[in-house]
């Protein structure tokens, strides 16, 4: 196991930010922690990256306890936090070299690796400028370069795409996917962007109020908790009522929940036609992770305003 936590808990004074999280992440997994702001995602990450000690429970990262073997854990992990990792008065290349030195690389090797990362992240033109003059997207790429500097076996990303425009966000996701494909890096990221969790991760852990409320692949989460929706529209309320009755759907809004919805449409239409009913329109809706969250908590993730 790359990560193994048992009843991991963090309390700040009277607030329980993380409430007994037990979690296993195997080598090579790409996991997204999804949840609203304040759900405990970042606090979990901060415990796993040795930034803060747990109040109770335990966590092992790469087989090492995060409290008693902090420095060894730090050597093995990469961390890309919510902020910008590079000092604003520094130059990007200098910061990269310092990062390498921090991991014990000799200067010459650190320099070579810095150049390599600058090239692969397209930072060639800005690497020798003060970080304060870089755009948000460029700074984020610099953060990625620093996080990857020592080629960690496990990479944590805390809200990696917050504040990025769609193009830079896509760019970042591409890097994450490539990293995984080329190096088999285990990746754990937190996000409150549903699309990001959906398209990027093979495993989504939904966290709310410091607890894990669901943990599965996006597809299975949707199938298990929501299912597809087939929306039938009729010309009159009367027809709609009859159809609803016929299809034994308890819902008033003419929505029918089904597994593998599109495949059931012909069958439903046939059933309706036999009864002399013709819908005005048919639509199948595949659920989103937001629907999953809504079903699980009664709240929508979209109500959340992203943090600055």
């Amino acid at each position, binding site marked *: 196991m790359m990560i193994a936590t048992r009843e991991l808990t963090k309390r700040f004074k009277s607030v329980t930010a993380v409430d007994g999280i037990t979690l296993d992440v195997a080598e090579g997994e790409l996991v997204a922690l999804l949840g609203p702001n304040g759900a405990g995602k970042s606090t979990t990450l901060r415990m796993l990256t040795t930034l803060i000690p747990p109040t109770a429970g335990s966590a092992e990262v790469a087989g090492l306890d995060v409290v008693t073997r902090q420095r060894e854990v730090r050597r093995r992990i990469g961390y890309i936090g919510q902020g910008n990792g590079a000092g604003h008065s520094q130059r990007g290349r200098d910061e990269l070299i*310092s990062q390498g030195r921090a991991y014990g690389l000799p200067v010459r090797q650190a320099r070579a690796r810095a150049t390599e990362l600058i090239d692969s992240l397209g930072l060639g033109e800005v690497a020798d400028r003060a970080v304060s003059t870089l755009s948000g997207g460029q700074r984020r790429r610099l953060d990625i370069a620093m996080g990857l500097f020592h080629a960690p076996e496990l990479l944590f990303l805390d809200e990696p795409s917050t504040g990025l425009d769609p193009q830079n966000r896509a760019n970042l996701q591409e890097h994450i996917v490539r990293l995984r494909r080329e190096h088999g890096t285990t990746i754990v990221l937190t996000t409150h962007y549903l699309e990001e969790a959906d398209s990027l991760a093979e495993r989504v852990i939904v966290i709310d109020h410091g607890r894990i409320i669901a943990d599965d692949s996006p597809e299975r989460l949707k199938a298990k908790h929501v299912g597809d929706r087939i929306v039938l529209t009729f010309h009159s309320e009367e027809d709609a009522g009859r159809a609803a009755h016929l299809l034994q759907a308890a819902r008033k809004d003419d929505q029918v929940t089904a597994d593998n919805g599109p495949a059931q449409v012909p069958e439903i239409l046939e059933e309706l036609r036999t009864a002399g009913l013709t819908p005005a329109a048919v639509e199948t809706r595949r659920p989103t992770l937001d629907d999953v969250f809504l079903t699980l908590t009664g709240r929508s993730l979209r109500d959340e305003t992203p943090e600055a």
Partner: protein
Amino acid sequence: MSSLVTDTRVVFSRELRPVLRSPFSIVFSMVQPLFFLALFAPLLPDGTSLQWFVPGIIVMSCLFGTSMTGSNLLYEIQTGSHERMLVTPLRRPALLIGRALKEIVPMLAQAVLIVLVCVPFGFRLHPLGAVFGLLILAGFCVGLGALSYTLALASKNQEWLFWTVQQTLLFPLLLLAGVLLPIEDGPAWLRFLSKINPMTYVVNAERGLFDGDVWSRASGYGLIAAAAVALVGLMIGVRAMQRSD
């Protein structure tokens, strides 16, 4: 394998790099002491010479520059680069010691500049004393720097706290050390406050040393005061850094 020394060196050279990349920043951060030199020195009573005034201004320059240095760390705490460094294997004490040691470099540059500016106006340089003086000052500024970084760590998420404390302490320390006017003729309570201000001993030592009086009692007291500030500053600072998240 890395050790505390190599870790400290990594932090030290990282901190120093922006200074080396734009050396003029050193001059900008010392405009205040230069103003005191230009606008206050001419007002000194006849008996007071540059020989008495300049060493105090050098200590003042060290105090002004070094006490503010925590704001750099405060900024890095806010932007996220401090957090990034906390997740590297760098030893926590190195994150503080490397930063504090770096303060010596701009301090030395400023001291040399002040002396160079003053020599044409009749300031006599005694090299041996000056070297000893700068050594004592180096210890003092490492301690002050460490305390400033400690203040920054304590002011995490409340920047106003850093500036309030720094600004509140700055002038009492300066005036009570007798940098601008002699304390000897002041009332007893003022002399008492001056006596418990470690900076007083540093200023007195610098005055003797820059005047060529190397082996004096004042030099000894100055050395002890500077060493004490360095030791206390580093101890408190390292503890604060170890708790930093």
